[in-house]
């Protein structure tokens, strides 16, 4: 149903800030990355940094065939994609803030392009690498 709701006496809707922000997109990606990296990244670091190289669970656990077969599964590939890609956007969002907060606030739009551009680039690379894993 069309037509805006009318508020008596408030026809001028604060003309200064009518620009609708697209920040929610980036903030959602940042939040997703924050959650994903908070829960899953530490254990992966333990796996690739401790369990894997030390053969803590025996040589067969990390045999090429086993890991390759598990990783190539479509669902696993999707999960790994999420695990890698979302934290890239958390980085983009936070790094943009860091740079703005240490004196580069004026060129924030330029910084945004580079930061989110990097994250998008990383997304594409990740997708390609995962696609070629079969």
């Amino acid at each position: 149903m069309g037509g805006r709701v009318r508020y008596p006496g408030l026809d001028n809707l604060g003309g200064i800030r009518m620009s609708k922000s697209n920040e929610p997109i980036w903030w959602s990606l940042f939040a997703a990355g924050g959650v994903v990296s908070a829960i899953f990244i530490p254990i992966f670091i333990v796996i690739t940094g401790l369990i894997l190289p030390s053969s803590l669970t025996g040589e067969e656990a990390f045999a090429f065939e086993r890991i390759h077969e598990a990783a190539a599964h479509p669902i696993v590939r999707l999960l790994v994609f999420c695990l890698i890609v979302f934290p890239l956007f958390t980085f983009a969002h936070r790094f943009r803030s860091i740079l703005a907060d240490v004196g580069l606030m004026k060129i924030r739009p330029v910084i945004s392009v580079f930061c989110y551009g990097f994250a998008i680039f990383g997304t594409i690379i990740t997708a390609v690498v995962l696609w070629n894993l079969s």
Partner: protein
Amino acid sequence: MKSYVRRYPNTWWLNKSSYFFFMVREFTSIFVAGYCVFLVYFIYKLSQGPDAYYALIEALKSPLSIALHVIVFIFAVYHSITWFKLTPKIMILRIGEEQIPSFLISGANFFAWVVVSAILAWIISVV
């Protein structure tokens, strides 16, 4: 009468411990993203065949790799801890007049973190 605008220093985050640890928290995103780039590399080597894969496994046994993992781990855990402590501020749940205490929400997140990590470690190592 002319008012005076003081310049805010770019080193503001060094002036107070709460500001400093805020910056540390933001910096963790660099290390986490760096590790994600490494994961892409890992998958890539996996797709290149057994020789490439086992070469990477060997490289992971080096002291440099261990040291880097430890550093990244510390920052990643700092991110996790600060993230779970912040979560209750974003979602305030109420039952009637009472607000669910923050520590319960944080606690639930920490619990999920530990459980998920244990399950993942078990799946990858044993199953």
